């Protein structure tokens, strides 16, 4: 097992911070390239909602000053970077005076729990199916059936969401059609009614994600199993007369799953941004919904805060995998040294 050299660690950390700075700069610039600005959009919305707004120019100027949007771009940029250092993302423009941190904090637990559950289940189901697809003792009927279920992989998750919503929420009425729990009827906290409500509300969105994504893991696992199947140690294991299940688990899956674990760690980084439209369809109050709505409203601070959060998570996941890999697979050493 390789030890991580300090120079490698420092270099890796350097790249980590450089990535974040670079990304932070991009998410500062991109929203500002769009025509219009958030304040005019907000006042425009007010105009739209209320017929007309007298004194809208005074309102626009007041708000621009409050958000520093009347300052020059370099000034805004320096202030923005300074705030990032203290993780202060400022206030949402669309929902002033709510701090961006509060908007994210309110949405994040829902997304984390829903998506983490969905991803872990997807990973487990996908890899299991991929493994038994290649296993010589799997009944032929099962082997024929698995590829058929993978037809869902080719449809977008938003369509799967609509399909599930229509059939299971509206026609059959088995699951609720929106929200994360029965708001107003159960009290959030560690109680059965609440937990049951959360599970009932999370089932369809989670299923929409699982249905469309397990196929990737299945195919990847199947490919790795083919490689493993051809290894000499497999012949030896069988020649020794080991039980088929033991061979499947100890010799095949444990070897085949290594690259899948790496891929899983990286997808964890993109976890939060993953299912914007699924959240929207199910009115699930998570990060996807926050991002979607912030983009529609050109809410710069929320877009910046949420994007910064996503980028940091991805960069962190990649860094962790890089640092952990030598421990997961002893054949690899950090920094290319052996």
């Amino acid at each position, binding site marked *: 097992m390789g030890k991580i050299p300090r120079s490698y660690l420092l270099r890796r950390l350097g790249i980590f911070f450089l990535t974040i700075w670079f990304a932070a700069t991009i998410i500062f610039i991109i929203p500002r390239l769009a025509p219009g600005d958030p304040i*005019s959009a907000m006042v425009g919305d007010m105009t739209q909602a209320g017929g007309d707004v007298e*004194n809208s120019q005074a309102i626009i100027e007041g708000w621009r000053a409050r958000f520093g949007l009347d300052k020059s771009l370099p000034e805004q940029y320096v202030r923005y970077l300074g705030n990032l250092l203290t993780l202060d993302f400022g206030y949402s423009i669309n929902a002033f005076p709510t701090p961006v941190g509060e908007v994210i904090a309110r949405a994040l637990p829902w997304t984390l729990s829903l998506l983490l559950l969905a991803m872990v289940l997807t990973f487990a189901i996908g890899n299991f199916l991929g493994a038994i697809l290649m296993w010589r003792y799997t009944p032929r009927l099962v082997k024929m059936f698995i590829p058929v279920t993978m037809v869902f992989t080719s449809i977008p998750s938003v369509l799967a969401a609509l399909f599930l919503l229509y059939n299971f929420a509206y026609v059959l009425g088995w699951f609720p059609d929106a929200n994360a729990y029965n708001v107003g009827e159960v009290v959030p906290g560690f109680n059965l009614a609440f937990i049951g409500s959360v599970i009932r509300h999370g089932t369809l969105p989670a299923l929409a994600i699982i249905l469309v994504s397990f196929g990737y893991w299945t195919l990847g696992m199947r490919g790795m199993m083919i490689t493993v199947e051809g290894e000499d140690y497999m012949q030896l294991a069988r020649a020794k007369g080991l039980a088929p299940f033991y061979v499947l688990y100890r010799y095949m899956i444990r070897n085949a799953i290594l690259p899948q674990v790496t891929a899983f760690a990286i997808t964890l980084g993109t976890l939060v941004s993953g299912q914007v439209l699924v959240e929207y369809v199910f009115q699930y109050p998570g990060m996807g919904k926050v991002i979607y709505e912030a983009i529609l409203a050109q809410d710069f601070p929320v877009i910046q805060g949420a994007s910064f959060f996503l980028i940091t998570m991805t960069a962190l996941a990649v860094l962790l995998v890089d640092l952990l890999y030598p421990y997961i697979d002893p054949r690899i050493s950090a920094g290319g040294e052996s």
Partner: protein
Amino acid sequence: MKVKAIFSVLVVALLAVVSTVALAQDVPREETLIFDFDRTVTDPENYNPFTPAGNTNRGNGAHQAMWEPLFILNYETGEIDPWLGTAMESNEGLDVWTLSIREGVAWSDGEAFNAEDVVFTIEMLLGDETATLSNAADMQQWVESVEAVDDLTVQFNLTGPNPRFQVDFFAVRVVNSILIMPEHIWAGEDPLTYTFFDAEAGLPIGTGPYTLTSSDSTRFMWDRNDDWWGVAAGFEDLPAPSRLIWESVATEDSRVQLISNDEIDVANSVSLVAFEIIQANNPNVIAWENDLPYSWADPCPRQLDINTTIAPWDNANMREALSLIVDREEIVEFAYEGTTQPSSTMFVQYGSMSPFIDAVVEAGYGETPTADVEAAQALIEAEGWTLNGDFYEKDGETLTLNVLVNNASTEYTNTVDVLVEQFVDAGIDAAARPVDNSTFWGAAAPTGDYEVAYGWLSCSSVNEPWASMNRYTTNFLAPVGEPAPGINNTGRWDSEAAEAYTAVVEEIGTLPLGDPAIVDLVVEAYSYIDAETPIIPLVQATKLLPYSTTFWTNWPTAENNFNHPAFWWNSAHQIIHNVEPAS
């Protein structure tokens, strides 16, 4: 041993779980009135209606159930119904307004609602140096000072005469009115950041017959306060629903399903197809009208604004030609499937507006429902254009036209598709220019970055003509590229006729509401619009709102017209007080 220990821990944990189960009080479905809402709620824990966060939340029950307006404008009669206020009268100079407050009004915590609350709220807006609180800029423009004459009387001393002071700010003219906040809670708080939310302390509070039970970005629940002041004061009985819920609905498909299954009682506007599906699924569902157009016209009629600075549309004859090409009946038929009506003027066609509309039409300045393409082509040819193949040409250049459209709704893009076809058929190489919502409202429309823009930029008048007409005066002129103040006169109409129009409209603006001189002045002002065509009125706006009568009846309809049906407005108190249980 180990198994036993784990088992004991599990049992204890389970007991702990069960013991903390606390269910909110159950209310039967037939006592619950459920509304649909389609606005984005970023922060469900802000009830400061003067900030953007709280302003978003007010339409989810807060200003329909908890905060009551001082007055409510009745769209059909044009009269102002009293609510927390009993009267608001001006002096002859229209610059001093005196508000009388109803006796016996109380906040839901028991404190009396009085003149001090009104004075406190208005002074708070006057004191906002940033002018970013909702209506702060309005109050700073119009109110010199405000004082409590006695417990139930408030005097507003204005900066100048304003005949519309009451209707514009305190009578729910369109969507909102200035909401009065309780001084005993708000005093000492910073209104720019105060959230007015603390579930444990029982906040927010209002004077309305419902209080907040729970608040989430996708669902708002309000329960009836049986000690509401209105009963003891002899104002109104308690409303029938024990509970009100606002449920977030994301798509039209969901809306169709939910009201078909009676999971919501009233839904936001749907298309004709969706409405027909709903009625097939649920025969108890009705709308404003029993037959086509089914819908209620919202206050923002659709129209085209023309940028009068860009050739060849800087020529009034060319603009007139565009107007003649427009076939409004085709728009109604193809873009709206018959759910609306052609506009005859820039105004919304409510009962209270008909004296002005009738006078304009009688004077010959009204729009026709069908096109007169021959007359249009004669105008274009008189300007030196000749038809070469499909399109007009002049000096080797083809006559082109871009129609700016907000792509946020298929209503808008469908209408523009019909219009583009009409222009193309008449020989103009027209094309739609779709942009997203924030580009439309935040950049393109205000800065005049268009040749022709589809929208509702004259929207404002509902009971008097000045508010809409004022939007086209030369007072709002700004160079193309800079935002026009208030998104008014975005077409930069600037000519002798525009100056003359402005003078007449300014005169209308100084007359008291209902002054008989106004009708003639409107006709005079409209003659300039007719002569120079800065705008082309198209059709009335449409809101096809399905209500289910399975649990609740006595909804507002064209026949039962106690007021308009906009249930997301501050005026919806009237709807909630009027609905009756079906059984």
